[in-house]
């Protein structure tokens, strides 16, 4: 039952992904299948609960089977395009692989095996999950309801305070519920699968912009980011959020540079799920919408912008509506009016600087990004090399910092929020930093040269004579 449930989730994920785009690589489709399938599953669980149907293994399983069958029918009508996709992934040209590529992938494999073993071996023990996400997941599986959950409604648990777990959008919690409903001893299978899924997606996207050797090395350096790897084996929301947010932004970048329209909708779906995981995901949506607005103004067409924004914001609106309808609202700690607090700004900047310069948390990610960025300034100014990737990074970082600034921390100190929450939120930026490091003009040129040297490819004669 447990593995059949996971299989259905993966199949439904593949169904959704292929319904949206038939231009993805096989590794990307396989990598996206679990995160997207789980997103769909959790959304269906909230819908079932809203309809007054008890959340049991049978009810959840029956509905997901029904939806998967529906997707199957839809894909049947797209069979001609699916055949084209099969041809597209079938025309496999052997990549220029090297020893470094092989060693990089072996190292990725070693890290994955060791980390997944750790994830599955230890049950949930980290603070936020024990007293929040995993507890809620376990309780929903036991009581079969979200809106009537004792933890939310019993005054004994005081779940209505500012910053309480009730305010978190429910993907992580409900993915744990799903694991408990399927009969797993702990909910950690969900974390393990999110970690495994991220690797092919990231590798697939980076290899669209860089050589396979560089993609393998970048994937390795991304996943061994110390603090992020440590948290990927725990039950918090941060790594799961990083998977959705970074993949969403990277597909947005791929849409922009590779001009494949369907990637914009893959990005929209992933950014939607990023917001279904954490409300702060609005920062990434804001950044993508700003770039899309600029693009829309350029081409003077706004339909795509409206649809994209609407889709991305849907989970946030849907969840808050759900909380309002079932009277599950908590104290709102967000200050909606603009204000000036120099003390707060000083604390944010000081703590942020401490995080950036602490190599122990993020390894060489920030330092190398800075070096590569500075060395690439000429290409950025002259050719706008990956300007969109950089702007997305900058905007989402600014938007998130503004969000942090606009919250009234009555339940904790700002220093603590910066040292713990902000530190973990930066996980979403790590894959984006490494993507830029791999895809920028200078590094790409260096690895292209190395590839050409290895495979003895001479530049065409007309290029040779050019000066």
């Amino acid at each position, binding site marked *: 039952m447990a593995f059949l449930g996971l299989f259905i989730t993966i199949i439904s994920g593949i169904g959704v992904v292929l319904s949206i785009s038939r231009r993805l690589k096989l590794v990307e489709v396989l990598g996206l299948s679990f995160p997207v399938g789980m997103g769909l599953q959790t959304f269906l669980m909230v819908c079932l609960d809203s309809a007054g149907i008890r959340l049991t293994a049978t009810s959840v399983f029956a509905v997901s089977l029904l939806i998967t069958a529906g997707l199957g029918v839809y894909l049947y009508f797209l069979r001609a395009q699916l055949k084209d996709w099969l041809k597209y992934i079938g025309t496999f040209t052997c990549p220029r692989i090297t020893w470094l590529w092989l060693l990089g992938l072996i190292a990725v494999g070693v890290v994955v095996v060791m980390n997944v073993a750790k994830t599955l071996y230890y049950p949930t*023990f980290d603070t936020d999950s024990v007293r929040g996400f995993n507890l809620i997941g376990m309780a929903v599986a036991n009581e079969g309801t979200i809106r009537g959950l004792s933890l939310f409604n019993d005054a004994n648990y005081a779940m209505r305070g500012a910053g309480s777990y009730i305010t978190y959008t429910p993907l992580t919690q409900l993915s744990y519920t799903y694991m408990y409903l399927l009969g797993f001893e702990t909910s950690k299978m969900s974390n393990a699968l999110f970690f495994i899924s991220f690797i092919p997606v990231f590798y697939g996207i980076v290899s669209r912009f860089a050589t396979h050797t560089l993609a393998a090395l970048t994937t390795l350096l991304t996943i061994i980011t110390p603090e992020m790897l440590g948290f990927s084996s725990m039950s918090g929301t941060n790594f799961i959020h990083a998977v959705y947010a970074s993949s969403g932004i990277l597909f947005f970048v791929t849409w922009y540079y590779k001009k494949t329209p369907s990637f914009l909708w893959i990005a929209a779906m992933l950014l939607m799920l990023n917001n279904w995981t954490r409300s702060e995901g609005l920062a990434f949506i804001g950044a993508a919408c700003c770039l899309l607005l600029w693009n829309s103004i350029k081409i003077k067409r706004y339909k795509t912008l409206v649809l994209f924004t609407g889709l991305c914001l849907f989970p946030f609106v849907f969840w808050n509506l759900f909380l309002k309808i079932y009277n599950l609202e908590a104290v709102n700690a967000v200050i909606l009016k603009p204000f000036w607090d120099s003390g707060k700004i000083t604390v944010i900047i000081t703590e942020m600087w401490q995080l950036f310069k602490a190599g*122990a948390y993020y390894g060489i990610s920030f330092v190398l990004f800075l070096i590569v960025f500075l060395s690439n300034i000429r290409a950025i100014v002259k050719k706008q090399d990956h300007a969109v990737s950089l702007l997305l990074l900058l905007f989402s970082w600014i938007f998130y910092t503004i969000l942090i600034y606009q919250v009234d921390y009555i339940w904790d100190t700002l220093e603590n929020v910066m040292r713990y929450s902000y530190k973990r939120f930066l996980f979403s930026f790590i894959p984006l930093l490494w993507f830029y490091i791999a895809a920028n003009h200078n590094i790409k040129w260096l690895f292209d040269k190395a590839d050409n040297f290895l495979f003895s490819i001479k530049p065409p004669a007309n290029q040779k004579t050019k000066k």
Partner: protein
Amino acid sequence: MTKSISGKKPRKKTERSQPQPVLQKKQRNRIADWLIKAFGIKSMIMAAAGCLLLYVVISENKGYQWMWTNLLKANWNIIRQHRNATLDERYQMKLGFDYVFWNYVKQNTPEDAVILFPLKEYNTEKADNRQLTYKTNNKMWVTHFIYPRRMLYKDEQDTNPLYKEVTHVAIIAGHGYEDLEYPAGNRTYFTVLPKKQGDNNLTNK
């Protein structure tokens, strides 16, 4: 039909009589060429240089050292040494005596129990060489391990209506006996007892 010089009919060549090579010579050369390029000496030099650079960068950084030594290697060794550990044992590895006590409370109370914990200041007191951590003072932490049982602290006796429904008392570091409605005989430092004498229906057992 053509005849051979000897006048005999030429034998029809069948696949069986003359097997085709699996790969054409040209194709074979291409694959060999590709293999040499991909895994030849130049590739080896590049890999060695890359690995050396990565090693230097990674070994100089405390975070990567911690990641490899403490996070991956140390846990891998623990997992290999205790591969048959039960879920309870794995919880104990991470949470120690906290988990032992909470689990004891869970095992010895019915699912509908309302458990009174002593004043928060007593919950981390050392007794009999054992001590609970600050986590016991967080209601949600404890609830995770005793769910669906409910709990409250004695600090809440005037504010929490659940105080009237208390069915069990958690004894921590010898505190809590004063809340029992009967004189306890054999006193231990850490246990859970029914509030009223003989009122311990373990409906979940």
